[in-house]
C-alpha cells in the first residue's frame, strides 16, 4: 500500500489530502473538505493538470498587452509547450473577454482565450 500526501489546489483553503494506492488503484482519499478536493487528488496522482495564464501583445489597442488563459486545464507536462505556442502571437484590438486567441494550443485541444477587454484606439485619441 502506498500513501501519497498532497496539498489541494482546487481553492485557496489548500486542504492536506492523503491518497492511498493499492496495486495502482486508488483505494482511499481523505483530508479533503469538498468533492472538488477528491476529484483533484484522484487526478493529481493519475493525470495532473493546470490552467496556464499568460499574456500576448495587442496592436492598435489602448493597452500594449492582453492577459490570456487556457480555456480549461491542460496536462501539467504540456505547460512549457503551451507557453511556446504563444510566442510571437499578436492580436488586433478590440479584444473581449473569452475571445479565442489561439485554437488548440500545442495539440492539447484546448483554446487560449482572452481574460481582459482591450479597446481599440480611436483616431484622434
Amino acid at each position, binding site marked *: 500500500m502506498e500513501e501519497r500526501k498532497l*496539498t489541494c*489546489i482546487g*481553492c*485557496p483553503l489548500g486542504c492536506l489530502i492523503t491518497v492511498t494506492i493499492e496495486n495502482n488503484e486508488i483505494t482511499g482519499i481523505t483530508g479533503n473538505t469538498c468533492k472538488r478536493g477528491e476529484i483533484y487528488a484522484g487526478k493529481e496522482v493519475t493525470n495532473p493538470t493546470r*490552467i496556464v495564464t499568460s*499574456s500576448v501583445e495587442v496592436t492598435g489597442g489602448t493597452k500594449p*498587452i492582453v492577459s490570456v488563459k487556457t480555456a480549461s486545464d491542460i496536462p*501539467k507536462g504540456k505547460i512549457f509547450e503551451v507557453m511556446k505556442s504563444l510566442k510571437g502571437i499578436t492580436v488586433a484590438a478590440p479584444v473581449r*473577454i473569452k475571445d479565442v486567441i489561439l485554437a488548440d494550443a500545442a495539440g492539447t485541444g484546448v483554446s487560449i482565450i482572452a*481574460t481582459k477587454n482591450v479597446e481599440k484606439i480611436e483616431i484622434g485619441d
Partner: protein
Amino acid sequence: MTRHDLIIIGGGPAGLAAAISAREAGIEDILILERDKELGGILNQCIHNGFGLHTFQEELTGPEYAARFIEKAQVLSIPYLLNTMVMNISGDRTVTAMNRTDGFFTLEAGAIILAMGCRERPRGALNIPGFRPAGIYSAGTAQRLVNMEGFMPGKEVVILGSGDIGLIMARRLTLEGAHVKVVAELMPYSGGLKRNIVQCLEDFSIPLKLSHTVVDIEGKERVKAVTIARVGPDRKPVAGSEERIPCDTLLLSCGLIPENELSRSAGVAISPVTSGPVVNESLETSVPGIFACGNVLHVHDLVDYVSEEAAQAGRAAANLLLGGRKPAGRPVRVLTKNGVRYTVPSEIRPASMEETCTIRFRVGDVYRNKSIALWLGGKKVYSKKRPIMAPGEMEQVILKKEDLIKETDLAEITVSLEEG
C-alpha cells in the same frame, strides 16, 4: 464646493463592491475616485487564476473577476473619475483631489468609504545591507511590468519573501523564460498560500529556503549577486551559513501594508497591529461617517472576502445616509486571546449590527488541531475545529445578533484559540 452623498476612495475590488452595494441599498449620488487609468485596482495585474471561487463558484483570473464588478457598476451607472489622486481627507469629510482635466478641486461628502488598498513593504523598510543598483523590485512592481506593460525585469532572479505575489511571480517569470534560482523566506514557514507553494514552486522545482534572508547585495549599476544566509531562532543571520548567488534581479515579497496616509489626515484611529483603521460592526472608523473596507482596513488573502466586506461597508454607509441608524448604545470590545493577533471589527454595538457579523482575524503562528472559540463574556457560544491555521490565511467567526442580544451588560466579546 460640490457635494456627493457618498464618495469612495479607490476603484479596486473594495471600492467597486462598496459602490454597488450602496447603490443597491438606495444611494443615488455616489462618486468613485481612482488614481489609476482604469478601474479594477491590483486585480488588473493579477492575471493568474483562482479568484472568485466563493463569490461566483468558478475560478477566474484577476482581470475577469474585476470585469464582473466593473460591468455591474457600469450597468448601475455609478459615476467614477480616473487618473484622479486624492490629496487629503479632513475629519469633516471634505475631500481634496486633483487630476489633469479638473485640476485641484474639493468635494464634500455625506459619507466616505476608504478603499485605497495596500502597498508592498519596500527595501528601505527591510534594512538589507549592500549596494543600491538597478534590478531590485518589489514583486508587485515586477508583476505590473510583466503582466500589464509587457517588460521582463530580468533573467536570473532571486526572490526574498514567500508572500503570494512573490510565489506567483516565481512561476510567471519561469514561464517567460527567466531562471528563478531560489525563494528565501526569513520565517520558518511561508507567508503564502499552500496552493501557491505547490503550483508556483514545486511544479517548477524552484527551491524554497525557509529561515533564510538576504545579507548582501552586490553590483554598482545592476545587481550582480546576492548573498543569502540562514537565520537562527532570533531571526539573525548565522555566521558561516552565507551563500553567494549570482543573479541580475532581486524581487522583494515581504509583506503588505495598508495605505492609510489619507485616513490619518482625516484623524482616523489606526490599529498598531493591522496598520488599518479601528472599526466597529458597521466598519465605521473612529471618525463618524468615514467607513473602511478591503486591504486598507486589513490585508486579506482572498478577494472574495474583500468584496463581501466592502459590500457590508456600502450597506452601512447607505444606512447612515438614509437615516436608518438607531441609537448605537454602548460598544462592546472584541478581545483577542491565545494566538489571535487582531479582529476586524474590534468593537460591536449590538443595536447597530446586522443579523450576523463576520469577525475576521489572523493568527500569529502556525497552529495545528486547535479550535476557534467565540465567547460572550463568560459564555462560549461557538467553537469550530481547525486542523491547521497559519498567519498567511485569514480566519473568521460569525457572531449572531440573536446570541448577542440575550446577554445584558456584556463586558466583552472574546475570540480565542483553544485546545482540541
